[in-house]
């Protein structure tokens, strides 16, 4: 896989982790 795509996939995972943590907090349970 091209390095640029890999870097962007990692970036999306970082953003998803922020979303998931916020959602967990809202729902009061771990995801």
């Amino acid at each position: 896989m091209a390095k640029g795509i890999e870097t962007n996939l990692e970036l999306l995972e970082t953003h998803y982790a922020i979303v998931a943590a916020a959602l967990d907090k809202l729902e009061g349970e771990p995801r």
Partner: protein
Amino acid sequence: MHDIQSAVSGKEISAMSVVDTCLARIKASDAHLNCFTHLATDSARAQAREIDQKVARGDSVGALAGVPFGVKDLFDVAGEVTHAGARVRLTEPAAEEDATLVARLKAADAIYIGRLNMDEFAYGFATVNAHFGTTRNPYDTDRLAGGSSGGSAASVAAGLLPLTLGSDTNGSVRVPASLCGLFGLRPTHEALPMQGVFPFIEQLDTVGPFTQTLGDMVMAYRALANRHAPSDRDTSIRVARLGGWFRSNGDPVGAAGVDAIGAAFGNTPLIELPLAEAARSAAFLITAKYGGLLHQETLQHNAMGYDPAVRDRLVAGVALSDSKVDAAKAIIQAFNRQLQAALSEFDILIAPTTPSVAPKISDGWIDVGGRRLSARANLGLFTQPLSVAGVPILSVPLKRPGKLPLGIQLISRKHAEESLFNAAARLVKDGLVGFTPPQFELQDVTS
């Protein structure tokens, strides 16, 4: 703009001379700035001739008679190819008709001058375009103009055009407005028609104007929205400053600007939208996914025609799972509830537009809370979370002569654009907000 309209309609100056002066300024300056991707010289002169003939006959002329304007390279203009900043669209057929907003401006006798540079497919906050080049900031040509509507902003800041249109999906009007010291409006989502505008993320896409002055902004918005001045004005405005995410990640100059503006409205509390960071990340994910899906087919047969940086972001976005997209949508819904609650208590919320002034082109980085982040992806740190709510937001330029520009966002309820204009008028009157011409214009255009 009012002066041009008045002079043209009053026969003090011809529309043709306005166009010729405008084209001469562009010719003298654009090699340094790279704002334009196309100049419509012949059609501009033809339209000017028609307006002058109307004036000579004593016919009435439009509210923007003789005002030159340009559009971001994603608006359809009849007879021109809509490139959307992309090489893969160079061979597309020309548009058959004008985008609705271009038609509205022309109907008001504003004169179309040309197309303006942007990040490819509006995916970026920098206007660094692999095919059409980088647009430079008139306040310091070694710095970014911001994006993705960078050509639209830099051309107004340099005094090449009094009015341009851009698009704002995640901040692409507000970010370059901030870095180029202009008024830039993201209107209420769906308040202005998108017909004839190349899409990016339809649930977030808006289009809006750039101007040097608030008066021009109001004039432009009313022409674009087909609206007249309201009969009543807000007498008291309840204002709050946004803290938390919007305070801890930016240049202290932005926070100081927010405080100064807050003080102009009296005792303005500092409130938090706890989900702002998550909403920003959610917008990032939604943009990657739906942007990727929009381009998936073209990418499959012409991936190498894309700007590599844009291509890689789009390809990664397609791979994002539906469950992650659903999580992002859930956060957006929850954030919207927080924002609506704040806007039920306050008429205007204020926050910095960008986390920093324009970064150097050679750096490509901004410093955010001690972290070095890509300017292209992160200049929208403060605009992106607010985009998901669909509310109108006006970026106003802090008055700071001799320093690089920085904008402040005024945020209000859906369809409350006039409330934003009223609040901004007070700030202009107090001398806190306003356009400061760049030295570039003085040195290069008048020489």
